[in-house]
C-alpha cells in the first residue's frame, strides 16, 4: 500500500522506489516499490521490525543513498537524478539529520557543532532563531562544551539543534532516542514535537519504540520492504496494537 499524506503540501515524496542489495543468492530486496508522502509541517514516524527497510527508506529519502527504481522528491526537486555535488548541497541546505549516535564532531564545541552546516554553507545563523532553538533545547550553559563533556541526552539535543538551525525542508532522524533512557528520550522527543507544532518543521523519524512513535502525528509501518499500514494521531497503545496485529502470520500472508 502507499502511504499518502492527507492533503496539504508535501515536503518529501517517494514514488515506487526499489532498493536491492547484492546479487544472486545474497540478493536482499530492502525496498520493494515503496510510495510515501510526508506532509510539510508534520511529524511522521516510521516503524517496523528490524531489517524491514526503515533506515534504507530514510537514507533514500535523504539523498544519502540512491534508489534502483522510482523517484524521490524533496519539496519540488527530484533528487534521484542529482549528482554528488548537488546532493551534498541539498543535504547541506535543505535537509537536517539526527543519527542514533555519532552526531557530533569531537573537535568542535556544542555551539560550533550546531552551526556546522551553516558554516559549511557560509551562512550566518539568524540570531532570533538561534535564541529560540537554543532556548527550547535548553543548552544555553553548555554551548562551549565539547561533545565528550556532554551526556548522551545532551548530545542528542545538540544534534537536534543542529538539524533545526538551518530550517531545513525536512529533518530525518534515525532512532534518535535509541541510545537514551526514557527521560532523556522524552525530552528530545517533546522538543522535536514542539518544533513541529510551533515552527512548522517537517520531521521524519525512524523508531522502534511505540512511546516515541506516539509523539508523531502519523505512523507509517514497514515490513519486508513495503509499507503495510499507517496510523494517524497515534498513541502508544494504538501503535502497540498495530504492531501486534502486523506481527501475526496472517498479516504477513496478506502482504
Amino acid at each position, binding site marked *: 500500500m502507499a502511504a499518502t499524506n492527507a492533503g496539504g503540501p508535501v515536503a518529501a515524496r517517494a514514488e515506487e522506489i526499489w532498493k536491492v542489495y547484492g546479487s544472486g543468492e545474497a540478493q536482499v530486496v530492502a525496498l520493494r516499490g515503496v510510495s510515501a508522502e510526508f506532509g510539510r509541517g508534520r511529524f511522521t514516524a516510521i516503524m517496523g521490525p528490524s531489517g524491514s527497510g526503515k533506515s534504507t527508506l530514510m*537514507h533514500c529519502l535523504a539523498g*544519502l*543513498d540512491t534508489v534502483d527504481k522510482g523517484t524521490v522528491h524533496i519539496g519540488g526537486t527530484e533528487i534521484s537524478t542529482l549528482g*554528488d*555535488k548537488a546532493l*551534498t*548541497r541539498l*543535504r*547541506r*541546505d535543505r535537509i537536517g*539529520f539526527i*543519527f542514533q549516535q*555519532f*552526531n*557530533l*564532531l*569531537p*573537535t*568542535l564545541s556544542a555551539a560550533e557543532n550546531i552551526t*556546522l*552546516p551553516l*558554516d*559549511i*554553507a*557560509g551562512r550566518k545563523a539568524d540570531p532570533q532563531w538561534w535564541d529560540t532553538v537554543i532556548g527550547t533545547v535548553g543548552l544555553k550553559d553548555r554551548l562551549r562544551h565539547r561533545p*565528550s563533556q556532554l551526556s548522551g541526552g545532551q548530545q542528542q539535543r545538540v544534534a537536534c539543534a*543542529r538539524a533545526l538551525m538551518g530550517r531545513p525542508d525536512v529533518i530525518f532522524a534515525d532512532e534518535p532516542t535509541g541510545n537514551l533512557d526514557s527521560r532523556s528520550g522524552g525530552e528530545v522527543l517533546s522538543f522535536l514535537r514542539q518544533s513541529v507544532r510551533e515552527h512548522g518543521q517537517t520531521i521524519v523519524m525512524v523508531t522502534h519504540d511505540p512511546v516515541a512513535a506516539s509523539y508523531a502525528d502519523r505512523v507509517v509501518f514497514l515490513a519486508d520492504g513495503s509499507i503495510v499500514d499507517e496510523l494517524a494521531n497515534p498513541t502508544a497503545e494504538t501503535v502497540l496494537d498495530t504492531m501486534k496485529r502486523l506481527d501475526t502470520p496472517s498479516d504477513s500472508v496478506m502482504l
Partner: protein
Amino acid sequence: MFRATLKSLLARKLRLVLSGLAVILGVMFVSGALVLTDTLNRTFDSIFSDVYAATDVSVTAKPKVEVSEMDGEEVSAPLPASAVETIKTQAGVRSATGRVDADGARVIATDGKVLTSFGPPRIGSNWTGTDEMMEIRSGRGPEAPDEIALNATTAKLAGYAVGDRVPVLTQQPKREFTLVGIWGYTGGRDSISGVQEVAFTTPVAQELMLGEKDVFTSVTVAAADGVTPDQLRDRLAPVLGAGYEVKTGAQLSAEDSASLKEGMGFFNQILLGFAGVALFVGIFLILNTFSIVVAQRTRELALLRAIGASRRQVINSVLVEAVVVGMIASVLGLLAGIGAGAGLGALFSGMSGGMDLAPIGVPLSAVISSFTVGILVTVVAAVMPALRASRIAPVAAMQDVATPDRPLTKLTVAGTVVTAAGAAALGTGLFVASGDSALYLILGGVLVTFIGVALLTPLISRPVVSLLGRLFAWSVPGRLGRLNSGRNPRRTAITAAALMVGIALVTGVTVVMDSAKSSLKAEAARILKAQIMISGDQGGPRPPTYDPAVVDRAEAIPGVRAAAGLYNDLVAIGGERSYIAATEDLSRLAEAYGTTAAKLGADQIAVSAPEAAERNWQAGSQVSIQTSRGEAHTYTVSQVFTEDTLPGSIILPAEAIKGFGITQPVLGFIRLDDGVAVSAVLPQVKALVADSPEVSATDQQTFVDSQAAIFDQIITMIQILLGLAILIAVLGVINTLALSVLERTRELGLLRAVGLGRAQTMRMITVEAVVIAVFGALLGVAVGAGMGSAVARALKDDGITQIVLPWDRMGTYLALAALVGVIAAVLPAIRAARLNVLNAIAHD
C-alpha cells in the same frame, strides 16, 4: 587466538601496508649503505690486484715527503737510471724495466677543454711495450719524441683516433704530439678503473713528467724462473740499501687498496651517517605508525579481553602481528637495500669514470642489521602501545570512542631536563671553555639540545599548531583541518619531528656554509688588491696550472702595475708535512697583492707572524725544508709578514720551485695602475692564458665568487642526501594522515552527510597535512639555525668571522614543507573524499 590475530592482520591491509612501508624504508637505508660499502671495498681490492698483476717486484726511491691518501697524490722521488742497471745484474732477475709514472698528464680534448677527472689520476708514463694485461687496440707504441699512445678510455673521452695531433699539458706548457697507438686491457677494459694514461717515449716522459733526464719513478723487476717474488725482494733490498723501497706486487696491491680504503673510510662514514639519520627518522615513522594502529585497535583488543582473552594473550597477539610485519618488511627492505646499493654503486662507478664494479654482494652485517632493525624496532614500536592498551579496563576501552591522549607531563619534564643540559653544554662551550674542549662541548650540546627539542615537540605543538592553523581558519574546512591537526599533539609532534630532523640538519649546514662563504668573501675583499686573477677549477686531486711565461708577459701589458704567479707544494719541515707557497719574486707578489716586501734571496723565506710564532721562528732562524723533489735545503727566515697581507704563510724563493711536485703556477695575481680599467686589460690577459686551458683570467669579484662556490656545492650535496631523510618524513606525514582518515571515517561520514562537499573534505585533510609539515619545518629551521649558528660560532678561530642566517633558503625550506604537506595530503584526501557516506557512518 592466533587465528584471530592473523584474521585481523589481513582485514587491515591498508594499515599493514602503511606500517610495513615504514619498516621497509628504514631497513632499506641501512642495508643499502652496508651493501654499497662492501661492494666498493671489494672493488678496490680487485683494482689493485689487477694493477700489479704483471709485477713480481717493484723498486722505488723513498719519497721525499710522505703523503697520506687524504693529502693528495704522493710525488715519488726520482730513481737514477744507474739503479736499473744495478738491478739488472743481480742474480734471480730476469728483466728490470725503468718506469716513469706520474700524475699530471692532461690531455686537451678535441673540443679544446682539458679532460677532467673526479678521482682517478691522469698518468703520464714511458712506453715500455705491452705486458700480459695490455693489448694494443690500434697502431703501435710511440717511437719518436713527438709520438704518444693513449689508453682507450682517454682516447674515447677526448675523441681522438690514431693519426690525430693531440695537445697535452704536463709539467711543461702545452705540447702537441701525434697519436700513434691506442691500447686497452684484457677483458675488453679500456682502462683500469678509469685512470687516464698517456705514454711517451722514455726520454720525453722523463723530461715532461719528472723534469729530469735519466731518472725513473720505479723499476719493475721480473723474477727468473724458480725465484719467487718474495725471494727476489729479499735479495734486492740489501743490495739497493735504505734509500729504496722494494716490494712485491702483492704487497703493493694490498697497501694501495688499504690506503684507498682508508681514504674511502671517510666516505663510508658519511654514508653510514646518512643511513643513521634515515634510520632515526625511520624509527620515528615506525613508532608513530604502530602507536596509531594499536590505538585504533584498542576497542578490538578490549573486545577480545571482554570475551575472555588474558592480557598476555592480547599482548601476544600484537607481538605476533609485529613479528610478522617486521619479518616481511625486513626481507623486502633488505631486497630494496640491495637494489639501492647496486644503483648507487653504478652511479659511483659512472662518476669516477668507468671503474669496474665488483659484483654486488650481500655482507652478513647487512642481513643482521636489517633484521635487527626491522624486527626489533617494529616489535618495540608495536608492543609499547599494546601494553598500554591492555592495561585499560575492557569496558572503558570499548566505550571510549576517540582514543584519549595521555598527559604530556613525563615527556615535558624529560624534554626540559635534556634541553637544559644541552643548552648548558652549549653555553659553556661558547662562552667559558676554549680550544678543543669548547668545540666538543658545543657539538655535544647541539646534539643533546636536538634530542631535548624532539622530546618537547608535543608540548610545543599545541600553541604553534594552533597559531599556524589560524592562517587557514578563514574557511570551515580549514578550521576543521586545523582542529584535527591539534587533536593528538603526540602524533602530530612525532610526525613533525621526523621532518624536523632532516630540515634542521639541512638548515644547520646551510647556516655554517653561508657563514663561511660570507666570511671568505668579506676577507677576500679586505685583503685582495689585485684586480685580475688567473685561476682554474679544482677538478681533481691535482690543481690546475698554467704556463709560467704568462706572468712576465702579463706584466708587460701596458697598465699593469705588477703581476705574480703563486706555486704550491707539500713539503716536510722537521719531518712534518706542511703546505708552502713560492713565487718568482716576492716584491712583485707583494705589489700585486697590495703590500710591500723585499725580494727573497735564493736561501731566504718569508713567514707570516702567526706561523712564525707557532713554529717558534724569528727573523734569522735557520730552517730545513724538504720539497717533493730535489734535496732538502736550509733557508733563513728573512721576513716575517702580517697575516693575510700575502697569500700563504710560508713563502719560498723562485729557486725552490724546480724541486716542487708541480713546477707550474697554480694562481696568478695582476694589479693594475691606478685609473686603468679592468676591462681594458682583462681581454689581453685572457689571450695570454689561451694556451693553458685549465685556467682562466677573471676579475677579482668573479674569482672570489668561484672560490666561494664550493660552499654552495656542499650545501647542494647535503640537501640531496638529507632529501632522502626528508622523503621518509614525508611518508610519515602520509602515513599519519591516512591512518587518521581511517580513524575518523565516521566523522567524515557525518560531515559529508551534513553537507561538506568532496573538495572541501580534501581541503580539510590538506590543511591538516600542511599544518603538520610546516610545523615540522618551522621547528627544523629554528633548531637548525640555532645549531648552525652555534657551530659557526665555535669555528670562529678557523676563519668564520660572520654568522649569516640565510633567510631566503630558510624561507624556501618552509615553502617546500608546505608543498610537501600538500603532496602528502593527496592520497589520504582522495581516500577521504571517496568515502561512501553511508558506509562511513556505519563504520566502526
